[in-house]
């Protein structure tokens, strides 16, 4: 039964490089500990060549020119580990979380799906690279051998069954010990005294003699060196949490560099979602702000120095396009700036199943959801968020009884359409059924059915009204000559009231009036607010 292991060497460095890939060509050292006792935790290959080794103090390495120093970031390591799990889960459901930098997965039954084992190993390495992690991948007949090979050999390694001892033989014995403990250092010292440098040497030792001197630990290590261990994989079921973090060295003030970082986070998130065949319908952005500066949201002294700024982007349909997300976030942040320098960025996506839509050849055109979302966000930036959308009528007689809501045109479903056709067919068959007011073919209204529209004045036009014999006779509005003059005709009043049981009750008398304008007769709806005794023009019939 084949197993694969994905191992990320220098994991703390790779986790940081994932967020800042431009540092990959420079010497980089990751520091751990509190200042001034910081020590090097991990270095990349360039730094190693420059003579920097883990365990050195910050003081020792500061003399090295061109060396980039970064503090260890546990949230970024957690995100990188989650990405590694996603990479493995995209191939096999049986995945073991061996260590933060090591994932073992069962490849049984995957060959008909993904091809031969070398191809699977290459695909794993490529997928990890897509997720921003430079990983070593090894495939072997048992999990421990795969893990040893991944730790020992860089790149992609395939160990054929029966050749484990031969292929692992060239590896140094240090590869057997994941973590440096006291016991491991004692064993390494013993091996060193015996002159055993390679796994080949350990594998060649007699079993009984090794057992007498080192006990069961020695036997287990020898089995590892020979590649003949056998154990059951412990699969994990990781939670579907898609969150990426960047801790910034310096506070960020402008939106442009922030967009650059957000773009990178979004690409990583989208790559992770894509590896799981998922999309997202909700993005949550959390910015940790530094209020020690001159930001207007700075807290008074004594309060906590950091404050978080959160924005949630909800989408009407599941999407998976990092460019669209970035533009939407940019527009949202432009409309709602954080108000203080940013020191940390958290971006999370709520995973959902991707949208599956089947478009028909004869269906009416519809805007693409991605484009429509961007367009709506841009329009909201021009006219305001509350001024764009579709509307929903409220169950009230109150004037302006509607609310604005998010515009999300319902997608056309063939079943629904078929249902409508069936209803129409039934209507046609049933002669007793009343004829629909609208003709189905053209959707055309006859002249008699045409509705007289009312154009609303927002805000209403306050006017002075002169009454005569209980009806309005003259209106006066000095600001607009078209809205003043003698009332030629009036109908009303139509009295209505409501919500009297609440604070915002209303009561009004409505009149329909005709006023002689300069050239034409204009029809208005005249309203008298009975609670406040005010007259105003609500709109014009057009």
């Amino acid at each position: 039964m084949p197993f694969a292991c994905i191992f990320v060497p220098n994991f703390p460095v790779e986790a940081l490089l994932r967020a800042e890939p431009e540092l990959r060509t420079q010497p980089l050292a990751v520091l751990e500990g509190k200042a001034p006792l910081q020590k090097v935790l991990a270095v990349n290959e360039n730094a190693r060549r420059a003579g920097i080794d883990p365990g050195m103090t910050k003081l020792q390495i500061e003399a090295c020119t061109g060396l980039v120093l970064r503090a260890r970031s546990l949230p970024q390591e957690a995100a990188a580990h989650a990405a590694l799990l996603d990479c493995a889960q995209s191939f096999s459901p049986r995945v073991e979380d061996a260590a933060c930098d090591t994932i073992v997965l069962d490849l049984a039954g995957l060959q008909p799906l993904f091809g031969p084992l070398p191809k699977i190993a290459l695909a794993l390495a490529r997928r990890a690279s897509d997720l921003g992690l430079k990983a070593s991948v090894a495939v072997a007949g048992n999990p421990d051998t795969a893990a040893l090979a991944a730790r020992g050999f860089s790149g992609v390694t395939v160990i054929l069954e029966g050749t484990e001892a031969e292929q692992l033989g060239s590896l140094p014995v240090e590869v057997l010990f994941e973590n440096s403990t006291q016991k491991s250092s004692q064993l390494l010292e013993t091996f060193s005294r015996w002159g055993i440098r390679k796994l080949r040497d350990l594998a060649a030792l007699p079993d009984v003699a090794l057992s007498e001197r080192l006990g069961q630990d020695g036997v287990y290590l020898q089995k590892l060196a020979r590649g003949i261990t056998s154990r059951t994989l412990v699969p994990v079921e990781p939670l579907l949490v898609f969150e990426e973090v960047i801790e910034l060295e310096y506070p960020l003030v402008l939106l442009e560099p922030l967009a650059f970082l957000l773009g990178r986070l979004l690409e990583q998130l989208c790559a992770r979602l894509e590896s799981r065949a998922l999309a997202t319908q909700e993005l949550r952005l959390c910015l940790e702000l530094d209020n020690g500066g001159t930001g207007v949201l700075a807290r008074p002294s004594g309060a906590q120095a950091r404050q978080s700024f959160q924005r949630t982007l909800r989408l009407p349909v599941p999407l998976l396009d990092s460019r669209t997300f970035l533009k939407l976030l940019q527009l949202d942040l432009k409309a709602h700036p954080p108000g203080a320098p940013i020191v940390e960025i958290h971006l999370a996506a709520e995973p959902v199943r991707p949208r599956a839509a089947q478009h028909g050849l004869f269906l009416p055109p519809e805007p693409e959801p991605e484009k429509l979302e961007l367009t709506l966000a841009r329009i909201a930036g021009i006219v305001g968020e509350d001024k764009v959308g579709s509307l929903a009528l409220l169950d009230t007689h109150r004037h302006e009884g509607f609310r604005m809501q998010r515009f999300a045109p319902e997608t056309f479903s063939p079943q629904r359409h078929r249902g409508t056709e069936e209803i129409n067919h039934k209507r046609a068959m049933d002669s007793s059924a009343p004829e629909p007011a609208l003709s189905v073919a053209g959707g055309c209204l006859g002249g008699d059915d045409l509705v007289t529209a009312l154009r609303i004045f927002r805000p209403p036009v306050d006017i002075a009204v002169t009454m005569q014999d209980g009806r309005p006779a003259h209106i006066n509005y000095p600001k607009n000559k078209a809205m003043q003059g003698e009332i030629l005709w009036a109908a009303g009043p139509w009295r209505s009231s409501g919500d009297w049981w609440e604070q915002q009750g209303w009561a009004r008398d409505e009149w329909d009036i005709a006023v002689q304008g300069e050239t034409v007769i204009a029809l208005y709806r005249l309203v008298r607010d009975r609670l406040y005794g005010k007259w105003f023009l609500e709109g014009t019939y057009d």
Partner: protein
Amino acid sequence: MSSLPLVSSAAPGRFIPVAASARSMLVLERLSAIPKLAGVAPAARLYVRPAPQMVSSGVREIDALTGGFPRGCLTEICGPASSGRTSVLLAALGAATRRREVCALVDISDAFNPHSAAAAGVNFEKMLWVRCGTRLQKSGSPQRHRDTEKKNEKIEKPVEQALRVIDLLLQSGGFGLVIIDLGDTPVKMARRVPLASWFRFQRAVEHTATVLFVISQVPCAQTCASLLLKVSGKKLSAVSSQLSAKTPAHAQRLHGLQIQGELLRSRLERKPAGSVTSAFVTKV
């Protein structure tokens, strides 16, 4: 030279190339052999723009008058207040949403009445309503400074907003009907909309299934409008019939508008302006 025409006007306004006779073909071959005329296509082989697809305007009388509204073209309806422009607008909106098309209304003076629209049968789920209005535009940055904040503020007028919004909507594509409501915009301001903008809009909808529909007090889009219709209140029936009557106000009600439509320009039909009119009545 042959006296045979290379095109024939079989249908009014639609020029269809006819098959050239053998003699004219010979002439064409000779002409194309002249070095100076190499690469010049004869008129008979020029691309003939196909007639646009027409959709129902939602009003039977207007459909009979114009054949409906052309897709991929700009249609303009102008008329004074209380002339019935908005009633036609709502009818068009209702017809489009009944065809399950996604529509957009750019409401420059924020005058749209949802209750009238509901009565006209508009499906609000298919309608995007953009309400323009005077607004302060700010350029955002994470750190707000009071000094720079004022400098970055810019007052944007509704018409300017509308022009930007229409650009975005037309670029987005996929809308069956995009309506620009300039009905309450003062004539001076409406005429200040640059002709270049109208050309841009017309080019944006060309070769698409979008009907771009404008209502205004006076013609604004000028030559960009493929169809220009003028509506006017023929007479206010409810008013005129009862003006002289001495009935009390509470015994009267507004029955509707009598609207007269006049075709001012149609690139599709090539009918002379004012030659065709139609009248219809609305109800309250």
